[in-house]
């Protein structure tokens, strides 16, 4: 039996992974080999001592998957809320209207809203209702108010037109002034250019006259003293 085979048999025997026949054969073999029996006993003792190993058990769930979103939503809803959602639509509408009316009443109470009926019709006001408000406005007063508003509007329109006209006039004046200034500047510049050109022409003409005079003098001198030429 090789060493590897012996080791494998040791393990099979120690951990009871042999059938009965193999076990008997191996035990018979061990009787003839006391040194192997001793080693096997030592391994068994080591196994025994391993049973003393301590172990800390986890005191909590180490991992837990979150439940599926749908299931979570369903299970997390309070029973009352679920019951409300299951009501008939008509009942839900009535409840919604009632809730709205209640909110309006609370709002009106806080803001001091007053509603009522006067001789001229209904009224709606915040705070205390004065006598005038309760009585309402007469037709004559309404006509006066309308006339007054109309007159104010006419005055306002006239003032606006006057203002617009004045602004327009000022803008026109300013534009004309700017245009005049522009043309005046251009005219001055043109005159200066013309004067400068004339001066330049005059200077050139004078220069050429002088050159002509000098040339004529030279000719006259040469003609007057022909001997000099013969020399």
């Amino acid at each position, binding site marked *: 039996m090789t060493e590897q085979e012996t080791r*494998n048999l040791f393990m099979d025997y120690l951990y009871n992974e042999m059938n009965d026949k193999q076990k008997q054969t191996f035990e018979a073999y061990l009787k003839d080999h006391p040194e192997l029996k001793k080693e096997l006993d030592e391994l068994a003792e080591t196994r025994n*001592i391993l049973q*003393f*190993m301590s172990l800390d058990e*986890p005191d909590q*769930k180490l991992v837990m*998957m979150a439940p599926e979103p749908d299931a979570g939503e369903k299970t997390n809803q309070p029973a009352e809320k679920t019951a409300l959602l299951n009501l008939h639509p008509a009942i839900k509408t009535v409840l919604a209207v009632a809730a709205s009316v209640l909110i309006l009443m609370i709002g009106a109470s806080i803001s001091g809203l007053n509603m009522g009926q006067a001789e001229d019709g209904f009224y709606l006001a915040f705070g205390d209702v004065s006598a005038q408000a309760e009585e309402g406005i007469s037709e004559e007063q309404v006509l006066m108010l309308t006339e007054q508003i109309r007159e104010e509007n006419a005055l306002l329109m006239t003032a606006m037109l006057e203002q617009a006209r004045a602004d327009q006039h000022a803008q026109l004046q300013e534009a004309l002034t700017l245009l005049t200034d522009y043309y005046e500047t251009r005219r001055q510049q043109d005159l200066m250019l013309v004067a400068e050109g004339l001066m330049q022409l005059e200077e050139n003409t004078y220069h050429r006259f002088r050159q002509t005079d000098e040339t004529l003098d030279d000719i006259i001198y040469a003609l007057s003293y022909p001997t000099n030429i013969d020399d």
Partner: protein
Amino acid sequence: MEHKDDTLLVKRAQRGDTEAFNLLMMRWQGKVYRFTYRYFADSDDAKEITQKTFITVYQKLDTLDDPGKFSSWMYRVANNLCLDELKRAGRRKAQPLENVIETPNGNGTPAKDLESKELGEVLHKAMMLLPDEQRVVIIFKEFEGLKFREIAEILDEPENTVKSRMYYGLRSLREILKKWNIQHEYLNYD
């Protein structure tokens, strides 16, 4: 190796049934925690790796072709995460066993330590001195009660290799305990 209903739960979980996955976790979190705790001898590490294991299982459950092999597949995930953690933390770098088994904690003799500490803690220390591949086989065999065939499947190693690691693991453990004078006092306890 696993509950018969596990296969059904795995199939349901693969179809997206969160409740089924929760049930699987409830069934298996204790086992995975015990495995990782014995691997690291540290409660925080064990909790962290257990959580990572189930997160990985959740993410990759679709890739499990045979739901009947869920437990071995999950143990493999846990074992790989343990190895990753060891690499990440850079712990237990290879060193000769003879260099580290002189004393369990450097103060006094192991026998005296036993007067104040539980034997279990000393055994954890002894286990941590074993090579990772031997320790994991001992944990699977001794504490999880798996067959050598199942361990071989989880570790993707030949069965004889697993038995060999178990043999050498037990021998190394005995050697450490002998050095600490624990063997004689406690082996006759039973």
